[in-house]
């Protein structure tokens, strides 16, 4: 146990040190870099160091304690926290939906080769559709969905777009995992006359877990990206994506402020990916080490 604690502490220290290093590099470049950047043959290769392009790190953080608009009790930190929490819930919904669809597709594809051959190319194609082109369409379709008492809420469009990005790595990763069961084990199951479903749950899913976890991590951060972009694109209110664009509009007068929202979005992605890792640790706690390799 102490080992675990020590490793966690080490990781935390490394994480903070890495952040501090980024801040130091940022400030060093700002101090020594050319104010108007460096250009070679008219192409800017060195970024500008002006207040607009690179605000001081402490300016960014000092914004957190300021009121969001003058005279309001609500600080920027409150706004960013509330926005991140809102987007987090949308992302979790999107992730859950994406995971459900992704795993279901993977199982179908693993079961029926013809499905795999037919569907997989479309999955790849689906990921080349730009999200910003899709976002207004989903909002528009959603606006017309009314099934009985169920009225499509606007936030659901953002979650669906999150799911749209999340399902792909999950489907591909899970499919790969389901196919990874050793031939000898599959033959053993066959010798027991185990049904395909039995084989799926007793053998294929367990061997797939090491493939699924990284896929789910990718899916988790992808769902955050989907939700944030959808918020920006469709103007959905309340989340961190909306805050980014709202604060970006103020960049003329206060270039440092938008970074608070960007930090919020980054933290959100970390939390989502971290949550998947935490679930993995809990699920895998009883699994012998060598089986995971």
């Amino acid at each position, binding site marked *: 146990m102490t080992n675990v604690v020590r490793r966690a502490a080490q990781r935390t220290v490394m994480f903070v040190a890495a952040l501090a290093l980024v801040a130091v590099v940022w400030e060093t470049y700002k101090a020594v870099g050319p104010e108007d950047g460096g250009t070679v043959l008219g192409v800017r290769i060195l970024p500008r160091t*002006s*207040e*607009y*392009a690179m605000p001081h790190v402490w300016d960014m953080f000092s914004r957190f304690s300021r009121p*969001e*608009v*003058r*005279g309001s009790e609500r600080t920027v930190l409150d706004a960013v926290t509330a926005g991140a929490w*809102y987007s987090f*819930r*949308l992302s*979790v*919904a999107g*992730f*859950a*939906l994406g*995971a*459900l669809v992704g795993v279901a597709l993977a199982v179908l594809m693993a079961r029926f080769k013809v499905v795999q051959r037919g569907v997989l190319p479309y999955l790849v194609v689906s990921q080349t559709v730009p999200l*910003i*082109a899709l*976002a*207004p369409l989903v*909002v*528009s379709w959603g*606006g*017309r969905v009314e099934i009985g008492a169920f009225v499509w*809420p*606007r*936030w*659901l469009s953002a*979650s669906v777009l999150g799911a749209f990005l999340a399902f792909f790595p999950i489907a591909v990763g899970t499919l790969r995992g389901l196919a990874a069961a050793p031939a000898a084990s599959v033959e053993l199951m066959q010798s027991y006359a185990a049904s395909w479903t039995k084989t799926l*749950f*007793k053998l294929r*899913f*367990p061997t797939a*877990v090491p493939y699924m976890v990284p896929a789910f991590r990718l899916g988790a951060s992808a769902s955050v990206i989907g939700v944030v972009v959808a918020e*920006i*694109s*469709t*103007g*959905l*209110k*309340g989340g961190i994506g909306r*805050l980014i*664009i*709202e*604060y*970006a*509009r*103020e*960049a*003329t*007068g*206060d*270039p440092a402020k938008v970074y608070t929202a960007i930090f919020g979005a980054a933290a959100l992605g970390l939390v989502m990916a971290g949550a998947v890792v935490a*679930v993995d640790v*809990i*699920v*895998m706690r009883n*699994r012998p080490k060598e089986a995971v390799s």
Partner: protein
Amino acid sequence: MKRSVRVAFAGIAALSLLVAACGGSDEAADEVTEDTTESTEAPAAETCTTPTPVKLQLQWFIQAQFAGYFAAQDQGFYADQCLDVTIVEGGVDIVPQTELANGNVDFAISWVSKALASREAGANIVNIAQVFQRSGTLQVSFKDKNITKPEDFKGKKIGNWGFGNEFEIFAALTKAGLDPAKDVTLVQQQFDMVGLLSGDIDAAEAMTYNEYAQVLEAINPATGALYTADDFNVVSYEEAGVGMLQDAIWASGERLASDAAYADTAVKFVAASLQGWAYCRDNVEACRDIVLAKGSKLGASHQLWQMNEVNKLIWPAANGVGFIDQAAWDRTAQLSLETKNLEGGTVLTKAPDAEAYTNDIVTKALDILAGLGVDTSGSAYAPIEVTLNEGGN
């Protein structure tokens, strides 16, 4: 192993339930809904038992540009007309006229040239009230660039937003005898004015009520104080003779023709909205507070500036607020026909049909307002003086 898989699935299911549970509570925050409880006390002509639900699509986020609608909601003007109005904010990729044509909303705010382009493409939408009588688009540049008229754009880096907000720039270039493709460098502009301040853009597109204020809220590094109007040259497209009609209320042409109840709702909606605008003309600061209370992130002095500048675009309204002036309409249509874009094409390929706008609805609405004693021409209107603070706060 079976167990661990089950745990994972149970976790996902639990998470989705949790989200479904949490999500519901925030629906109210998504859209701003009118509280209609006070409608019974309002001096309505007929008693209002079930208000008609109406959805209005804005072009952008909550700001004083749309103050009239929020004021009508806040002051109960919509409720007085027995309407339950939901105001839907815009987004980067939300096209109001498309939302209207798709039937997602009942009315939409859009610029005339953009909406006419959509109409030509098949969207049956009709201008029923021209709220902004004048164009608020500027091209702002630093004094030392010497850009005081569209002719001076030659050889300069001209910022524009795209998305149909650039038509006046092209119209001015065409009028000045310049080819947008060769004689100027067009630069895609962000939603802020950093490009102008850091020198990437010689002249930046700006609305009088928004982006121009943003530069006046920024610190001039040379002086340590805010930039002032003396630091800039401003080309006004309205003054250059290429101003195009902007914010107007659009309705579905199909429903206007076939649905008498919708046409009736349109009259009431326009009347109450214009009443809201009249309220904002006379109560500039109250309207700023209404907009701020609706959750605008831009600061108080910025919103007051915006309210004041928007009022200037609406008032005075000689023919009555919202009335579509034939001459201004024709000019907008003409410019849309003649204006060449980068590819050499024009905004419109043929003149808009006569059904593209109607003054029937706004005329009836103005009659309602006359009955209520609302001043709809604002002939005595005088703008206020607004002092901007740093960052618009």
